[in-house]
């Protein structure tokens, strides 16, 4: 982009961003490869190959899994039976999702005009994420993410919101209704942007626009 909409945004240092001390993802992605972890990865691989799982759409994750496969080739793991697969998925579904987990999914999204992430720019903040979780997994739960554009007339607010929505729709189980709102007073066309970001039909149509989807994919390519 030749002209920045906000030339000098405030930037947070990556190390100061909120994170879980012991991220549960470490069990999967942790550098200390041990037999247990590798087995776990292989299980995941098998799940991905045998089911049309939603996470499968996350190409990046699949790529990582595939790259781990070479490392784990010399380990013998019996094929999972259907029953075991279901069990593994069941276990995964048991993990409740909290605000930190949502934050981790979206904080690494790149800003469309700066070489920085939404977390670093404080566009997404842990305190502005709310999860209204129903204990019963057969019921609908809600996630509310309030975003703070770096400037109140940011014309990219809709694009940023769309990126967050696409990321969450791809990552969260179907039972979550995702509400993306601009933080009160953070934008001059707050209601207009909110309406657009939460219109499922417009979002669905946007996701069929190749050009727009290309931009969103680029924003999401920095997600961990």
């Amino acid at each position, binding site marked *: 982009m030749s002209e920045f909409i906000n030339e000098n945004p405030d930037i947070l240092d990556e190390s100061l961003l909120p994170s879980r001390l012991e991220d549960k993802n470490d069990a999967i992605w942790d550098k200390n490869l041990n037999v247990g972890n590798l087995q776990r990865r292989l299980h995941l691989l098998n799940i991905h190959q045998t089911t049309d799982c939603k996470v499968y759409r996350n190409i990046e994750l699949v790529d990582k899994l595939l790259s781990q496969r070479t490392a784990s080739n010399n380990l013998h793991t019996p094929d999972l039976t259907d029953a075991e697969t279901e069990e593994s998925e069941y276990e995964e579904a048991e993990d409740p999702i909290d605000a930190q987990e949502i934050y981790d999914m979206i904080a690494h999204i790149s800003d469309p005009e700066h070489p920085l992430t939404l977390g670093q720019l404080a566009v997404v903040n842990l305190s502005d994420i709310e999860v209204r979780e129903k204990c019963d997994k*057969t*019921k*609908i739960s809600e996630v509310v993410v309030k975003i703070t554009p770096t400037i109140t007339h940011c014309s990219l607010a809709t694009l940023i919101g769309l990126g967050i929505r696409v990321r969450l729709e791809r990552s969260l*189980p*179907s*039972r979550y*209704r995702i509400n993306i709102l601009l933080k009160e007073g953070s934008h001059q066309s707050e209601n207009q942007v909110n*309406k657009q970001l*939460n*219109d*499922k*039909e*417009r979002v*669905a*149509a946007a996701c*069929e626009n190749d050009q727009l989807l290309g931009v969103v994919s680029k924003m999401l390519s920095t997600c961990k």
Partner: protein
Amino acid sequence: MPIELLKSLRLHKDKLWSLDCSKGLMATASSDRKIKLVNLQNLDFKLVEELDDSTHKKSVRSVSFRPNSSILAAGSFDSTISIWGKDDSDPLDNPETDLLAIIEGHENEVKGVAWSHSGEFLASCSRDKSVWIWEADELGEEYECLSVLQEHSQDVKHVVWHPNMNLLASSSYDDTIRLWKEDADDWECAAVLNGHEGTVWCSDFEKSEASLRLVSCSDDATVRVWKYVEEGEDGEDIWTLDAILPNIHSRAVYSVNWSSHGYIASAGSDGILAVYKEVEQGNWEVVAQQNEAHSVFEVNMVKWTRVGDKDLILTGGDDGFANVWCFTP
């Protein structure tokens, strides 16, 4: 419980947006770009045909059968409308449906299509903020645009015709509903219904000849009934809010449908399918409520139909399923 699930049909790989039925056939439209036909006669529920899925390049958003015929119109996010037909002599369980026409004109996503009661007119609406009225020939192959109505200030989400008059209702992202009628050679806006506090997703006319009413549903999570009062002095029709239906929904309501027996059904983002009955003029009660009608998924469409001696409610959801419910009052 007066609602009972008869059949759950896994039809599409992505959102099922819309469905319609005519002459014992149900058509469904989906984000997976496919249109499928299911035989409802004898409660058979067999998938009988899948229409050529290379026709539309994007989601198929809306389907509508021409009354008393097998001609189907389908509106797509690719900005075109496809028209399909089969020989009425084809057996229902093995139809051979052909593409009859592709209608172009809208600038971008077509969001709704609907046939008038006589089958003479086809209406379509789009994100381009316009409603188009097309005149169709008897075979359904030729279409002439009679009018382009541009009074909505935002996307037009849905169009529906009155069951026995040439009166059209359009619902919009501008939070209003507009009613359109024929005036000499052209079509004009007969009334604007203001009141919803969010996108109006869908509306439907009462099927009675005795009174003229419309039900609408919105992103504001309400379902409202509007009543025609009289023709105003300036030629505009006067409509008034007749009732707000009991507050069942907690999120956007995407679809409403008025049955020929006077029941209203609604469904939406909260996964609830509700049926309301008017116990006295303007006073409605919920007579049936089905939570998680499509498990944890959103419900995009609800439609009444009658097969044999059964009143059925058809619903379509983001899970790609069409569910068939039996309603016993």
